[in-house]
């Protein structure tokens, strides 16, 4: 039995210490794994706001992850070719500045989440799952059949984008950026969860009728949560694209949506640091099982099945032992 706050500190500290130790041991690959874990954790934190706090089982968050990724790919490829994105009615040029790319990724994915959320939230339960899944796939097929930005082959960026004052090509410095972004978003999400907005969102999850009765506009509340959730996942997509210096329609595929959901379940639904623990463990499993067998996904599937059937509450839930409802 550990208090969740100390457990969160421990998870955060581990994520920071592992790459620092790897730096001392001169193991850049481990730093890259930790960076990947931090970025995927960010995507999970985004989904957890809708899924954990809001009870909205979105199976289409790959859409925002991919939009964030393509925001980076499109802007950076135009900057790379010195070809403006648009000349009329006003000039828009590509850029390789991370802050600008992040802003575009956040705005674009928030807009997509607004549109998809406004439609999907008209439904509920299993309809909501299927509708979000279907809209997610729509982007996947669109990028595959849209040849302007690489179509099925995706887009490669040759040099990682820049951040003022940081050498992003150095693995540990890029990890630093991702870690700081993750911690900043976790801080914001924590504040949000404790704000009247977060409490109302959670209240509507626990009992929709009661929330409606006390005069909460549940639809609008959920839509706002869905948009923020999509925007965070979009930001993670932009960072993920920068990590790989590559974007492809795979970012949009429903496997990606499933994986983001898996981080949350592994770590613990509606737990602040659940997605962080989940993503880290997932990356570790992927790396280790991949070394054991070519068919490692069988083992991953079995582990996941076991966690869902027998170990409810995930890692953080199992260690912290404080009940959080997530049935809805």
């Amino acid at each position, binding site marked *: 039995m550990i208090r969740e706050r100390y457990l969160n500190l421990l998870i955060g500290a581990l994520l920071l210490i592992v790459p620092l130790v790897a730096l001392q041991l001169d193991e850049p690959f481990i730093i890259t794994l930790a960076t990947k874990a931090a970025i995927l954790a960010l995507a999970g934190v985004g989904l957890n706001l809708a899924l954990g706090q809001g009870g909205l089982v979105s199976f289409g968050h790959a859409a925002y992850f991919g939009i964030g990724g393509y925001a980076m790919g499109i802007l950076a490829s135009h900057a790379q070719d010195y070809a403006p994105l648009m000349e009329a009615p006003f000039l828009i040029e590509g850029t390789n500045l991370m802050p600008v790319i992040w802003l575009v990724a956040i705005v674009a994915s928030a807009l997509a989440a607004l549109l998809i959320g406004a439609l999907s939230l008209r439904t509920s339960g299993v*309809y909501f799952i*299927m509708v979000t899944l279907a809209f997610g796939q729509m982007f996947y097929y*669109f990028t595959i059949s849209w040849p302007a930005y690489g179509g099925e082959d995706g887009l490669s960026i040759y040099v990682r984008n820049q951040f003022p004052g940081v050498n992003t090509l150095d693995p540990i410095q890029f990890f630093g950026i991702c870690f700081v972004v993750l911690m900043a978003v976790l801080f914001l999400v924590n504040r949000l969860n404790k704000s009247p907005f977060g409490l109302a969102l959670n209240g509507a999850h626990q009992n929709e009728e009661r929330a409606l009765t006390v005069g909460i506009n549940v639809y609008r509340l959920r839509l706002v949560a869905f948009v923020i959730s999509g925007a965070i996942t979009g930001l993670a997509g932009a960072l993920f694209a920068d990590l790989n210096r590559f974007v492809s329609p795979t970012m949009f595929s429903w496997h990606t949506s499933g994986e983001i959901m898996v981080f949350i379940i592994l770590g613990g639904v509606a737990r602040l640091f659940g997605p962080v623990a989940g993503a880290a463990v997932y990356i570790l499993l992927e790396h280790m099982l991949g070394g054991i067998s070519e068919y490692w*996904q069988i083992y991953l599937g079995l582990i996941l099945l076991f966690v869902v059937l027998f170990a409810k509450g995930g890692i953080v839930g199992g260690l912290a032992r404080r009940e959080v409802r997530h049935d809805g």
Partner: protein
Amino acid sequence: MSSILIIEQILNGLQFGVMLFLMAAGLTLIFGVMGLINLAHGSLYMVGAFAAAAVAGWTGSFLLALAASLAAAALFGALIELTVIRRLYARDHLDQVLATFALILIFSEATRWVFGSFPLFLNIPEALSGTLTLPGGIEYSRYRLTIILIGLAVAVGLFLLISKTRVGMRIRAGENDREMIGALGVDISVLYTLVFALGAALAGLSGALVGAIQSVEVGMGEPVLILAFVVIVIGGIGSIKGALAGAILVGLTDTLGRTMLPWAFAVFMDPAAASSVGSALASMLIYILMAGVLLFKPTGLFGSA
């Protein structure tokens, strides 16, 4: 665009729709009766296709291949129902989604392990190859016509099974009140296994039928599964009638969109741009259709709240 080509495309759309119906009927039946969302339904489609390709390669008989697809999918369906799925009925949808997502990983990798990564091919039987001349002088593939007929026959059979037989009566009763039919002495767990195996067999059949048109490969079930979800959302969950209407609508929209949109855009754009814009838009068309239906009926055309 000639009228013959349009009629051909309508028939292609019908064939695609009928195949989607076979997938969607199982999904919607399982959801309606047991309240379970089963992502692994696409895996059972793949199992059916692989079983058919393996048996056809082995015996050379298409009929045996079809029987094998039904048997293998029903068997694997019953197996996962007994081991995994029945633990999920009382769980929330999130757990169902994740557990069946895990099943997909297991099925896909196991299939890759047994059959390898290369696609298999299933040949169209001799008697059904070639074309048939329809009234009006339209030449159309015999095999695709057969799929349309099989699909429609299954739709009628399913309708009769559910509305006229004792098993169907129990299925309908199970949809409405599972405690009550349990109290009346019906063994619910056997009924659920049967319904699940029936849904699985339909998915397997559709996989085998399509396997002769496309290649049989790992992951083939997933795009079809998503389309089947779109069909169910449009038709309304739990409604066989809705699944049929939704499937035909989606089949026609998708097929006609893919041929007509690039051609329609070419009227006012240069051909290269028209084909890229047209095909990109066509790939989104059924989702736009789904969004349109949701705007007016959030529970689908034949769904109840």
